[in-house]
């Protein structure tokens, strides 16, 4: 009763969209499952102007035979070559949960921001840089609002530029990396087709002097929401009144699903060969989970995985050679975004580190490892399953990740058994495959 595909792609960002389109154009039956309301992932999020590259790929996806399972979140792997997904935000009584079978799987699960705890970071209107951008694309008006963008990485300038376009006053963009490091990177960037970091252009649009290097927030204050951010640059410290703070310290890969399926990780990233094959048979991985490299590299990896999974090896190999030349960029980006050790001192004793369970820095500081912290303080035991505090404690204390337990995202209890909700019916029932794909295909 499970809907089956030759190739199932998880994640409809650049890597997943490219993988699905290429695989479908090769004549395979392809399913593309993604948990957001529309395709594009985080970087090509709808609700605003999309770059031409995004429009091209999304149109190509639209015109393909790919079965787009938009608004479905993968939660479990209940059997070999089967993924179970839930309809996001669904309140209907049926069609909550479905199983999707595959012969080959391509994981394009993307990345999330790394958040570092500092006093006041839990106040409403302190968000991630990408998080704030997503809220704005989701309809939050920022015209006339004073905003500080902070953290590290190319995302900051892109976000600041977009917010400025929407009429926000950018009070400051604070990059934790020092100028020297950025100059070294910029030199490299000149030789790259760097759509990723159109830094020069952005910083000109914001106006000179807004970009602060070697600068970061040390505290946020307010009442029921953010009012003031304290910024530190070297020995100087100053308060900036603002409505929003968008603060993210570069990206961490979403590797929970690959890890649950048994894919080998190295230094936190999914290990693949040149064809984007993971260490698990018939499972490919493309995009940020293999290394944070931005849109262009994700597109390349998606295409390689799509073609390779569809058996078009020659095309995949040609693209793999192009990918090879860009891997240096991943390392360069990693170096420039390397976190300043002083950021480990941002959190005070009372600063909350685990936002789900409200576990404070002082309760964690003396713990031996992640497992002890989890068991004895509940850190990482809430619904985010350690996705937010895990990346923080990795930096703060050097703790490694634990094994991934299903569900890979919180899921309805009945979904664990693929049972209908609100029923005492013990029979296992499946959603009819035909009805499902009709129901869930995007209506443009």
């Amino acid at each position, binding site marked *: 009763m499970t809907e089956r595909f030759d190739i199932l792609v998880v994640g409809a960002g650049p890597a997943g969209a490219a993988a699905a389109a290429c695989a479908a154009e090769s004549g395979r039956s392809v399913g593309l499952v993604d*948990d*957001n*309301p529309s395709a594009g992932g*985080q970087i090509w999020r*709808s*609700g605003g102007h999309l770059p031409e590259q995004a429009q091209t790929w999304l149109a190509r996806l639209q015109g393909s035979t790919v079965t787009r399972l938009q608004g479905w*979140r993968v939660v479990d792997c209940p059997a070999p070559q089967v993924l179970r997904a839930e309809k*996001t*935000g669904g*309140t209907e009584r049926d069609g909550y949960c479905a199983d999707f079978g595959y012969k080959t799987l391509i994981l394009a699960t993307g990345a*999330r*921001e790394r*958040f570092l705890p500092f006093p006041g970071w*839990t*106040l*409403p*209107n*302190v*968000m*991630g840089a*990408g*998080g*704030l*951008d*997503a*809220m*704005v694309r*989701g*309809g*939050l*008006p920022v015209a006339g609002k004073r905003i500080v963008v902070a953290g590290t990485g190319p995302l900051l300038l892109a976000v600041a530029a977009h917010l400025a376009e929407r009429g926000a006053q950018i009070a400051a963009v604070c990059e934790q990396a020092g100028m020297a490091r950025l100059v070294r990177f910029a030199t490299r960037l000149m030789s790259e087709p760097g759509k990723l970091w159109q830094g020069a252009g952005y910083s000109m649009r914001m106006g000179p002097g807004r970009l602060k290097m070697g600068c970061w927030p040390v505290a946020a204050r307010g009442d*029921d*929401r953010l009012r003031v951010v304290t910024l530190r640059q070297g020995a100087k410290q100053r308060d900036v009144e603002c409505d929003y703070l968008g603060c993210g310290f570069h990206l961490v890969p*979403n590797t929970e699903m690959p890890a649950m399926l048994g894919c080998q990780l190295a230094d936190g990233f999914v290990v693949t060969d040149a064809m984007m094959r993971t260490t698990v048979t018939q499972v490919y991985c493309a995009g940020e989970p293999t290394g944070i490299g931005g849109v262009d590299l994700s597109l390349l990896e998606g295409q390689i995985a799509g073609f390779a999974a569809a058996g078009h090896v020659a095309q995949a190999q040609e693209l793999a050679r192009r990918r090879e030349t860009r891997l240096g960029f991943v390392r360069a980006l990693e170096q420039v975004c390397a976190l300043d050790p002083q950021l480990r001192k941002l959190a005070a004793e009372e600063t*909350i580190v685990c*936002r*789900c*369970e*409200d576990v404070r820095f002082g309760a964690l500081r003396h713990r031996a490892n992640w497992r002890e912290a989890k068991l004895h303080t509940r850190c990482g035991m*809430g*619904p*985010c399953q350690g*996705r*937010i505090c895990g990346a923080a404690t990795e930096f703060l204390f050097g703790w490694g990740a634990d094994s991934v337990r299903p569900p890979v*995202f*919180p899921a309805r209890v009945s979904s664990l058994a693929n049972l209908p909700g609100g029923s005492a019916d013990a029979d296992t029932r499946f959603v009819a495959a035909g009805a499902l794909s009709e129901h869930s295909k995007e*209506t443009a």
Partner: protein
Amino acid sequence: MPETVRSIVLTINGAVATVAPGTTVAAAVAMAAAATRTSASGEPRGPLCGMGICFECRVTIDGVPHQRSCQILCAPGQRVTTAESGARGRR
């Protein structure tokens, strides 16, 4: 979405809110100047990640608690309630 739909009317904590099509529930809640939830120790919280990862944007939608409002679009007639504090169960 048909062209004729110009705005969506929903309620947030009982108050009527009008938003453009394509607006997420998280954005609608932020516009209504409400925190999305109350934390385990009683702090008001708002969205952090904007992408369904952090669970700070959880609200109750049409009586169903713990919905990630950043990944759900506003729909006509939706009833959104915020400040769930480990929200009371099903009713």
